[in-house]
Structures are given as structure tokens and as C-alpha cells.
């Protein structure tokens, strides 16, 4: 793991480090050579780590006061909001923290898509990332069930019912998931258990994610392999630490705005109505971060195929490193891919919007077109583009790049437009 030998200066340090090389690890982390041209899109890894830790710490505190019982869950949440010291703050951080977590993870994923960070030799980092993303969705969904409001209950009913689409064993699986014949107390208690477990699984995978990253090192906006350490790199500490810190603070300002001034704007009003199995809400909608997949699910007329489409939409990302046939990583040097990239971004945003709208008429039509395009992008456009696209010349190194010696992306872009 370490690129260099490290000997602690103190005797005690050396004695300890010979038995457990924690100091070597710490030294590796601080010295870790990082490309010096990383832009702010690269700060979201650190931001996501912050989000995970925030969710775990606030979640632990909430779990001390929350009661996972169908008759008491809603009341215990109100107890937290009213009578627990700063309970409102902890709960609002946790609830909005989930949204902030997904906001950051989407930026992180789309950064990777733009700069081709998923390509060789970083496929394993990418696949671990997709698994983390899947676990995040599971954790967020189960967390949303815990307050036991109307959206909790009916969201849980709709999502667990998806498993009934599986031929032959579907119904049995749903009963098994529920622990009964409907979403009820056994469902709530197992969701609470799993909601508590998953963040620690994510934490473990994050360690692997970072470990796998530290083998080849970071990709960078130019997307070329760099020698490390070299004049193209800077040590992680203090350069990247301070930069990540600055970006994190900016992120926290947005976060704080939501927590303190509109804590409920990202949630659904119906979730402040206690769960009632006898009354179905007019529209059952998932949280905003799941809407694109919800739109894909609903745009397929057949239930089983809808579920398959929704799952494929996520799992297709796992094989992305092999679907994208281009050897060039960064979209900066791929003029066509860059355009398709932004179309994909728009496509996902459109899907998200359609997921929030009723599945009928024009909305449904647009959702179907957008769903088709989503798969078209990954299955046809990307593989073909790798062979057909005429890419721009790539600089040999970050510092001594053929594009004028500037590591700055803006300069690279300017240069590009000048050459046209």
C-alpha cells in the first residue's frame, strides 16, 4: 500500500509501528501524492465522508430516543422534536443530511462520468462506489419508513410490493419481507435494524473505496496517467486537505440553510400524518433522490419488466467501464462525448421531474422517451462513440502539457476554442 519506507522518529513510535504500522498508514495518507490540477468537482469525496459521519453520529443519537413500534414510532419522533434537548436540530440534520448526501453523491458520480474516472485502472473503485450507492438507497428508503407517517407506510408498501413481480415466488418473498400479510410492526422493526446496520457496511466499503483509490491514485481533469510523486502532484496534506475543507465549508452553508430555514421543504407533507393503513394518499412519491428510477419503473407498462428496467438502470453503471470503449478518459478531449454527457444529465433531470408527476398523458410519454434514451446512451452511444469519435490531442503531463503549460482547465478550454 505504501509507496515509500517510513520510520517513526521516536523509539516508542518505532516499537509500536513495527507491531502495527498505523503510523506508516498515517504517513501514507498525509503524503499521498495527488494531482495538483484537481478541480472542485473532486472535493465531493471528502464531502461525502463528512455526510456519512454526520448521518452516523446524528443517527446514533436519534436511535437513543426513537421507539421502533408501529404504535409509538410517530409519537416518539414528535417527542424528539419537542422534548429532547436539541432533538429538533439532530433530527433535521439527519433528515436533510440524507438529501445532502445524495446531492453530493450525484455530483460525485457525474464527475466520474465526465472525467472518465471509472476507466482502467479504476474499475474496482467504481464498482465499489456503485455498491455504496445501492446501499445508500436502501438505507435512505428504510430511514424514510421509520417516522411511520403516511408516506413512510405507503412508500414501504409500494416498494416492497415490487418484489411480488418476481414469477412464482414473488408473493412469498413479499410476505417474508413484511413479516406478515401487510406492512406492519414486524416490517418496521426489521427496517430499523437494517437502517442501523447499513451505514456501517457503507463505512467499511468506503474504506475499500479509498484503499482501491490509493493504488492507482486519483484521476484528474486532464485524464492522463501521471508519475507520482512528481511535479504534477502535491502531497495530500496540506494542499488537498485545505481545499477539501474550503469546499466542505461552502457545502455546509447550503446544508445549514436547509436545516435552519426550510427543514421540511425536501420532505413530503403527508409524512406528518401518522400512518393509516385504511387511507391511501392521493399521490405516493418517493424522496426526490429516487425519482429518476421511479420514473423508469412507471414508464414500463409491465410490472415485472418495470422492476427489471429500474434495476438495470442502476446495475448498468457497474459494467460502464466495459461499455465505454474510448481509451481517452477526460471529456475535455472528447468533443462528441461531452455533448452526449450533457444530454444524459438533462435526461436524468427530466426523468426525475417526471417521477414526481402523475404517470399519465404527456408526462408518461416523456418519461418513456427519457427512459429509452437513458439505456440508449449506455448501450449504444457509448460503445460506438469509442470507435467513431475523433478525439483532441492529449497533453503528455499536467505541467508540461502541449496545450500551453497550464494545468488550469479553463486555459485548456480556451485553447481548445481558439484552435477551432
Amino acid at each position, binding site marked *: 500500500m505504501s509507496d515509500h519506507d517510513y520510520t517513526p522518529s521516536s523509539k516508542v513510535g518505532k516499537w509500536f509501528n513495527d507491531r502495527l504500522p498505523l503510523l506508516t498508514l498515517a504517513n501514507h495518507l498525509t503524503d499521498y501524492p495527488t494531482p495538483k490540477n484537481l478541480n472542485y468537482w473532486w472535493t465531493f469525496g471528502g464531502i461525502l465522508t463528512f455526510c456519512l459521519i454526520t448521518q452516523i453520529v446524528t443517527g446514533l443519537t436519534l436511535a437513543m430516543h426513537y421507539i421502533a413500534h408501529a404504535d409509538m414510532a410517530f409519537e416518539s419522533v414528535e417527542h424528539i422534536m419537542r422534548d429532547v434537548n436539541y432533538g429538533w436540530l439532530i433530527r433535521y440534520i439527519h433528515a436533510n443530511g440524507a438529501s445532502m448526501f445524495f446531492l453530493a453523491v450525484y455530483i460525485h458520480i457525474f464527475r466520474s462520468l465526465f472525467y472518465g474516472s471509472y476507466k482502467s485502472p479504476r474499475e474496482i473503485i467504481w464498482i465499489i462506489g456503485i455498491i455504496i450507492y445501492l446501499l445508500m438507497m436502501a438505507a435512505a428508503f428504510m430511514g424514510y419508513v421509520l417516522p411511520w407517517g403516511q408516506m413512510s407506510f405507503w412508500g414501504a408498501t409500494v416498494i416492497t410490493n415490487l418484489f411480488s413481480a418476481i414469477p412464482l415466488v414473488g408473493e412469498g418473498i413479499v410476505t417474508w419481507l413484511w413479516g406478515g400479510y401487510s406492512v406492519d410492526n414486524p416490517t418496521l422493526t426489521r427496517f430499523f435494524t437494517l437502517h442501523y446496520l447499513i451505514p456501517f457496511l457503507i463505512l467499511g466499503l468506503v474504506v475499500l473505496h479509498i484503499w482501491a483509490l490509493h493504488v492507482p491514485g486519483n484521476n484528474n481533469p486532464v485524464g492522463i496517467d501521471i508519475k507520482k510523486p512528481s511535479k504534477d502532484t502535491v502531497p495530500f496534506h496540506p494542499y488537498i486537505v485545505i481545499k477539501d475543507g474550503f469546499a466542505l465549508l461552502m457545502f455546509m452553508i447550503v446544508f*445549514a440553510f436547509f436545516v435552519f430555514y426550510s427543514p*421540511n421543504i425536501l420532505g413530503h407533507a403527508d409524512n406528518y400524518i401518522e400512518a393509516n393503513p385504511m387511507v391511501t394518499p392521493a399521490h405516493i412519491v418517493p424522496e426526490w433522490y429516487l425519482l429518476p428510477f421511479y420514473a423508469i419503473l412507471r414508464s414500463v407498462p409491465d410490472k415485472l419488466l418495470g422492476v427489471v428496467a429500474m434495476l438495470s438502470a442502476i446495475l448498468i453503471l457497474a459494467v460502464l467501464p466495459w461499455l465505454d470503449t474510448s481509451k481517452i478518459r477526460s471529456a475535455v478531449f472528447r468533443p462528441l462525448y461531452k455533448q452526449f454527457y450533457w444530454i444524459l444529465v438533462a435526461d436524468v433531470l427530466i426523468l426525475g421531474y417526471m417521477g414526481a408527476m402523475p404517470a399519465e398523458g404527456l408526462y408518461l410519454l416523456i418519461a418513456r422517451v427519457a427512459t429509452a434514451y437513458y439505456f440508449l446512451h449506455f448501450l449504444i452511444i457509448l460503445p460506438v462513440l469509442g470507435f467513431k469519435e475523433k478525439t483532441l490531442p492529449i497533453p503528455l503531463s499536467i505541467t508540461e502539457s502541449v496545450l500551453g503549460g497550464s494545468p488550469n482547465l479553463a486555459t485548456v478550454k480556451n485553447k481548445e476554442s481558439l484552435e477551432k
Partner: protein
Amino acid sequence: MKNIFKLFSIIVLFCFTTAQSNSAEKVDYLKTDWSFKGLFGKFDRGSLQRGYQVYTEVCASCHSMKYLSYRNLGEKGGPEFSEAETKAIAASFEVTDGPNADGEMFLRPAKLSDKFVMPYENVKAAQAANGGAYPPDMSVLVKARGGGVDYIYSLLQGYEEAPSGMALDDGVYYNKYMYGNKIKMAAPLSDGLIEYGDGTKATVEQMSKDVTTFLMWAAEPHLEARHQMGFKAIIYLIILTILVYFSMKKIWSRVESEV
């Protein structure tokens, strides 16, 4: 630096557009100035106290508020009745306690620690007394409705003659802000219905505003503390961000690169 601002504004924009698209079903609600909105929003103490009066004299005969206790009425950031007033309010209600040493349940005046007394024994009793409709608990009602305070405020003033051609069953009323326009609650307020202790004229508009303010507080009892802390937190973050920005500039000036 230009990039970071671009990124920052994209995030802010994105947040607002998602927030906007989530609050679907746009209706033009009646507007009024809410003192509790905005960065420094605080409740109007007088309005909260009057709102409590409207609740207890009008709404409480059907609507429960099961998550509130009488002690809340005297707490900071709420109506802030004095301790004597709060105790007097509590004592004016009777609660069932027990069992006592003889195994009997008994009635006693409510204490500060008691929850608000419920108007009905249970949901079925409430439905039976209200033509099958359950008057929703009001503790978090404002947060449980899409339009929030504006919706409640409008609904209370939204009673009208049903348009011709619309048939209404017995015990169903027309309200232009209600979802589907049919509501099982008769217009609860009328001018001069109650007499305010502080001499404010009890118009429907005034009472609607007061009781809605009260409901907002009931749903968010720590709203004032939240706004105050939020302002401090954000100022602190901004100062820290500026300091870290300059430290970053200094550190990065050692390498030839633009941050």
C-alpha cells in the same frame, strides 16, 4: 475561484428547483404577513395568546392536540403565558387519573405536565360525533398540509356558497381552498364569535391569523430557537470559510497552480 462560484450557484439553484417541483399543486392562497417567516422570524406573542384562545374556545371541542402539554404554553418561544396563568389554564381542565389506592380511577384538575385534554375518547367516538369524518389532530397539522400556514389561513376564510349545479350532502360544506372543495367542517369562525382578552377585534380574518400562528408554533415549538441558532451558525460558517479560503490561497501559492 470562478469555478467554485459556478459550482456553488448550481447547487443552490438545483436545491431550489427540486424544492419547487416538490411543492406541487399550486393554489393561490390568501396571503398575510407572517411574523415568523424569514431569517429572524419570531412569533407574535399577542397573536399566539389570542390564537390559543381561539383554539381552546372554538377548535378544541372537536380537534385534539395530543402532543402538546400545558407546560408548553409557558415555555420560551411559545405564547409565554406567565407561570400563574399557565397553571390556571391547566387547572381549568379535568383529567382522569388513577388508579388510586382503592383501585378507582378519579378526576382531578390538570397539571402543567399533563397533555392537552382530548375532546373525544377515541377515533371512533370522534367520527361518530362528526358525521363519519375524523377531525384531524392539530399538533402538527400545519406541517401535514402542502400549503402550510397559508393553506390553513385560507381554508378558515374559504367558506362560500356552493356554485350552482354542485350538489352537497347534508353536513358537507363548500370551501374553495379545500381539496375537492367539499369539507365536513362547518365554517368554524364568524365575526365576534369570541371576545379577545386584549381587546383586539375578533374578525374572521384576525381569528384565522391568530389561530394559524398558534398552530404553527404548536407544530414547530422551537422555531425561534432554530432561526436564532441558524443565523449564528451561518455567520460562523461564512467567517470560517473566508479564513480557510485565504489560508488555502497562501498554502497553494507554494505551487504553480490556480485554485
